[in-house]
């Protein structure tokens, strides 16, 4: 329940069921519903919420303006085809507003003032001028803000609907009520031009939301982050930008045990602006991080920006997903598993197998990777498909290396003698071997101090032929 100057200004359905209505005093409310939550109306926060909504709705049209009585006006005539018609557009707008944690009454009409008055009356959708007139004629005069001062006089005349107001003589009405009322009426009916003050997206994006309580659960936090991302999506679309790095920070309670805000950075390998993709990344990032203390506020800033480069659609959509889909998949995997767990091959030209086989994070740009090996793979002696991280030392039984069962050599040796330039010379003879179960392994004989020293060579298991 929201109070404004000691009178109820807004209330929930449950409060209405208790018999409370708008304009009631605080004492009466406390008598009827002692457990009700009473809040003071905060015009500054209402205005902020309205501005956030306008920012989020910039993703549907570049022409958004604010109107009195908590209304946002969108000029959508140019967006209808892109978003698939007025119904689909209304559905998307409704989803966006719900993500901000707000609810709205949506109306549309061919004139902005008409749509504004219809929205305050209820959900009405008209796309033709004639039906708009018919509907406007039935609206109460109260909705015309310029008529507020003359309401009693108009009601005294028996003039309660706009249609009746329009039937009155024009000259007399102007003399009695002033020009503002007639102007507004004409604008609503599309007989006079309308002028709007369009909302302009700020040059830098930074949004913050205060949480209603101290929150520790990251899944609840991600719902609030979604509201910030909806604004970001509107901002990015309005400025035709795509984001490369996001910074999400969680503010913790101040006071004796002050904790510095937790910073989460979300890096994208390719610039993105799609709200759903960014949300899935933020969600995974939040789910993976642990909070040092409950959060009281959430902030979001776009750090690295690039120009938006929308992908061109195919005439015939192909199965199997596009390269952008794959990129999005990689980012999503990185967000949850960590950058070092999603790897691509970056083989090095080295004869030592453990050095030749190198993997790096997929977040490394492809240009920084070494060039693929030029040696013709088919000319190399056999190489296994698996390589053990650490070679396993093998016992020798009856002059044969032994791993679970005796190993049978099936190939001539391949000498790899390298590393002398790094001061770590190693001399190895690699063999392909078969065990009693007919599985194939890759083992090597390590010579200590060169082949001609007296020391016995040692056997190691190094790879598996999968």
């Amino acid at each position, binding site marked *: 329940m929201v109070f404004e100057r000691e009178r109820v200004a807004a209330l929930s359905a449950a409060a209405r069921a208790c018999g409370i209505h708008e304009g009631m005093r605080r004492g009466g409310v406390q008598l009827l519903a002692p457990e009700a939550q009473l809040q003071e109306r905060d015009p500054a926060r209402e205005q902020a919420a309205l501005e956030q909504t306008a920012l989020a709705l910039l993703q549907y049209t570049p022409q958004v303006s604010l109107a009195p009585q908590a209304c946002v006006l969108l000029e959508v005539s140019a967006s209808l085809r892109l978003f698939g018609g007025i119904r689909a557009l209304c559905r998307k707008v409704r989803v966006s507003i719900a993500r901000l944690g707000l609810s709205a009454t949506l109306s549309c009409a061919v004139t902005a003032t008409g749509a504004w008055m219809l929205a305050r009356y209820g959900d009405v959708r008209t796309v033709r001028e004639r039906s708009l007139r018919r509907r406007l004629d039935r609206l109460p005069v109260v909705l015309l803000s310029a008529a507020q001062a003359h309401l009693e006089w108009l009601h005294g005349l028996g003039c309660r609907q706009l249609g009746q107001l329009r039937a009155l003589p024009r000259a007399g009405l102007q003399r009695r009520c002033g020009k503002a009322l007639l102007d507004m009426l004409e604008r609503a009916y599309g007989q006079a031009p309308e002028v709007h003050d369009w909302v302009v997206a700020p040059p830098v994006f930074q949004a913050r939301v205060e949480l209603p309580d101290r929150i520790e659960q990251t899944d609840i936090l991600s719902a609030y982050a979604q509201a910030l991302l909806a604004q970001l999506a509107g901002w990015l679309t309005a400025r035709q930008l795509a984001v490369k790095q996001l910074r999400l920070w969680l503010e913790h309670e101040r006071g004796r045990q002050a904790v510095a805000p937790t910073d989460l950075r979300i890096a994208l390998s390719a610039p993105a602006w799609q709200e759903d993709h960014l949300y899935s990344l933020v969600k995974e990032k939040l789910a993976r991080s642990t909070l040092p203390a409950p959060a009281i506020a959430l902030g979001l800033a776009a750090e690295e920006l690039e120009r938006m480069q929308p992908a061109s659609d195919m005439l015939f959509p192909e199965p199997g997903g596009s390269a952008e889909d794959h990129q999005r998949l990689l980012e999503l*995997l990185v967000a949850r598993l960590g950058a070092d767990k999603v790897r691509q091959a970056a083989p090095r030209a080295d004869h030592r197998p453990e050095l030749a086989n190198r993997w790096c994070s997929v977040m490394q740009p492809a240009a920084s990777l070494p060039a693929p090996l030029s040696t013709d793979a088919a000319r190399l002696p056999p190489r296994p498909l698996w390589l*053990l991280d650490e070679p396993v030392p093998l016992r020798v039984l009856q002059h044969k290396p032994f791993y679970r069962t005796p190993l049978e050599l*099936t190939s001539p040796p391949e000498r790899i003698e390298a590393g002398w330039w790094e001061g770590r010379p190693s001399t190895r003879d690699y063999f392909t071997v078969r065990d009693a179960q*007919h599985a194939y392994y890759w083992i090597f004989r390590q010579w200590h101090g060169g082949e001609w020293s007296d020391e016995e060579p040692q056997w190691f298991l190094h790879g598996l*032929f999968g």
Partner: protein
Amino acid sequence: MLSSSSPARTPETIHPALWLASQLARGNGRGVSSGFEALDAELPGRGWPTGVLIELLLPQDGVGELRLLRPLLAQPQRLRPGAPTGRIALLQAPHAINAPGWAAMGVPATRLLQLQADTPADACWAAEQVLRADSCQALLMWQARLRKGDHDLLRRLHVAAQAGQTLFFMLRPLACAREASPAPLRLTLRPAPGGLDIGFLKRRGPLREQSLFLPLTPSPNLQRHVSPVDRRTPATAAAGSLPSELAG
């Protein structure tokens, strides 16, 4: 009793999804050829089916499971002219993947994507994302034994696989053979002299008791390397010597 003229004798003429228990199913379209004639003949759809969970049960890692998939993986399916060629995601691989070895097998390292997850739940999540994105040619997932409550994960992955065209192989220990599984194709792989014995644990088709033997070499260039010892430098190929490009 069914008369000989009854359409139930040949249910496949009514609808491709129908088949008799003595036939191999061919409902889900043609599979991707495994590269082995004998194996294709035993698989429903004459090849590996796409978009389903395929289980391969192994007694241990490295018995020849990757050599079995070699013809399949080495043939990239280019989905469209501009798109990158089929990527292969390897999830929870038991050992480090040796890129030069895969290159020798015919799979360039650029096509490989290695994924490691800390927990089984993360691994299943990653598999689901890969299947849903449907941008990889194949997904190979190694899955250790599941706990009692985790069997819904398999069903979930199978459903995720059905949404796309990704070839989804799950490699599990042989001990899982006795557990129920939603996978429509389950094969057991056992090493055999000179190849691999494939047992058909479950398939859409008649029961096959005896296993199928497939000859496989450990590496495509092993035979060439073995006999004669070294074709390129035959005169000087003593046991300890090396071709010049290998000598560091």
